[in-house]
């Protein structure tokens, strides 16, 4: 449910690091609470985002939620599959349901995130 190799924010986003690049998406808890995701509003590549700032919105049939970036930096890639077929966020939130990739500019920011066990504890 909450893979150990990821880091988590209290706004229910996850981070997977590959070198300097942080891949970001929403957790199983988030997509379950939302229900069927119908739309994702993602920013443009090249935009800068600050840690914990809003970068977009995610909508289900009956709800809309802001998306907050767990880390700050420049957005290098945006998942067009999530925009075209938003159900992928429900089906594979940690894999093909990723949302944005950000070039991390300050590794200390990772320390402000939770590991899997800590995040899971916050859900209870």
């Amino acid at each position, binding site marked *: 449910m909450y893979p150990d190799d990821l880091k988590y924010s209290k706004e229910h986003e996850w981070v997977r690091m590959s070198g300097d690049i942080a891949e970001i998406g929403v957790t199983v808890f988030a997509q379950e609470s939302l229900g069927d995701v119908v739309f994702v509003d993602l920013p443009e590549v090249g935009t800068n985002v600050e840690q914990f700032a809003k970068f977009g919105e995610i*909508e289900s049939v*009956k709800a*809309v939620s802001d998306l907050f970036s767990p880390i700050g930096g420049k957005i290098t890639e945006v998942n067009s599959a999530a925009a075209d077929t938003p159900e992928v966020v429900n089906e594979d939130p940690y894999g093909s349901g990723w949302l944005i990739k950000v070039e991390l500019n300050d590794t200390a920011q990772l320390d402000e995130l939770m590991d899997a066990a800590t995040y899971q504890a916050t859900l209870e």
Partner: protein
Amino acid sequence: MASSAHTSPNHPYIPSTDSERAEMLGAIGVDSLDALLEDIPAQHRHPKLNLAAGLSEQELSTVFGSIAAENASPSSGYISFLGAGSYSHYIPSTVRSILQRGEFVTAYTPYQPEAAQGTLQVGFEFQTIVCQLTEMEVANAGMYDGPTAFAEACLMAARVTKRTKIGVLSSTDKRLSDTLLAYSKYQGIEIVEVAADATDIPDDLACIGIQSPNFFGEIEDVQRLTKLAHDNGALSVVHVNPTALGMFKAPGEFDVDIVTAEGQPLGVPMAFGGPYVGLFACKKAHIRQMPGRIIGRTTDTKGRTGYALTLQTREQHIRRERATSNICTSTQLIGLMVTVYAATLGKQGMKDLASLCYQKAHYAAAEINKLDGYSVKSSGTFFHEFVVTCPSAPPKINEALLKKKIIGGLDISDRSESGMLVCVTETSSKADIDRFVKALSEIGVSA
């Protein structure tokens, strides 16, 4: 102050009897109604309502009969040439008949789609008709009226372009910009007048708001104005007359971004100003910024076609302060009237109707133009409204017309010297028009 559960004779709208109320109070566990009202400050409880006693249905009919009799209308022998945003058209019997169906009239907003497929499918048909008339890609299920639809369209243009200046063409009905002003007053929006013959506009406008036919009845060059808007990064918002669309090119053919209209001419009584319905259509690309309810087609668990409200996350009940609009209850039943009307008139009927209105209006204009002292100001092409420059103040002419049981056109002398805006629809016979022209000629001489 009176207290305790009320024990008046039953009213036809209230079934509970004294003994049933007593039984229910017993089940609740209290002796009297007052026990349920203890949170209400005692000194303010049970105020006397200074209202007359209730009337029987027969007495009510008499009251309303006398109210109706005090109003001048075709049913009391008057003919009218008023337009300017509300129009007299014949309403087919099919519209009135379907409106008798309580299942449409007394249903709620279709938030439970399984119990509201009637309302939803009609709404889907309505959206289709709006798209067909305007040749735009998507339409919503209706706004309050034409002017509020126009206001919401301009605000939508501001959201889409992220600009704060809204341009409105000088030839539009003041009602449109007045409503826009009321809607935009506290949203950091500036309204800028754009000259109708402008060849240049500021490069920071969110849109040019255009009305065609315009307030004076004339068809605007929507293609030119749309290009002017687009060349400056602005959207083109066009407010149309739906009857005119039976004849004139639809705005969708000119790459217009948002189209609005007053839907009242399509089968809705003038009814002293309302309720009406605002038509709203736009390009598919802007759909998430479109206000109002939208109905979509989908399937149920058994694969059968069904209809449901969709894209609800734009609306107030979900997005609250970030909603595209605060609109909740709008005008669904009026939308039903429009839908039945359009289905009844059909392809040929809409064309014939537009033609009739055009022919009669142009005949009237030609005849008035021949009169001494009167001239028809409208150049360009007009549909069913035109401006007459009168030999004396239009209010005086209208006063004299009233004595002949004629309701003249709208006094627009504040915008066009000695101007009267005359409207002629299919409800005016040649005899009516000739009577009007004759009266004008008699009055023009003496007024």
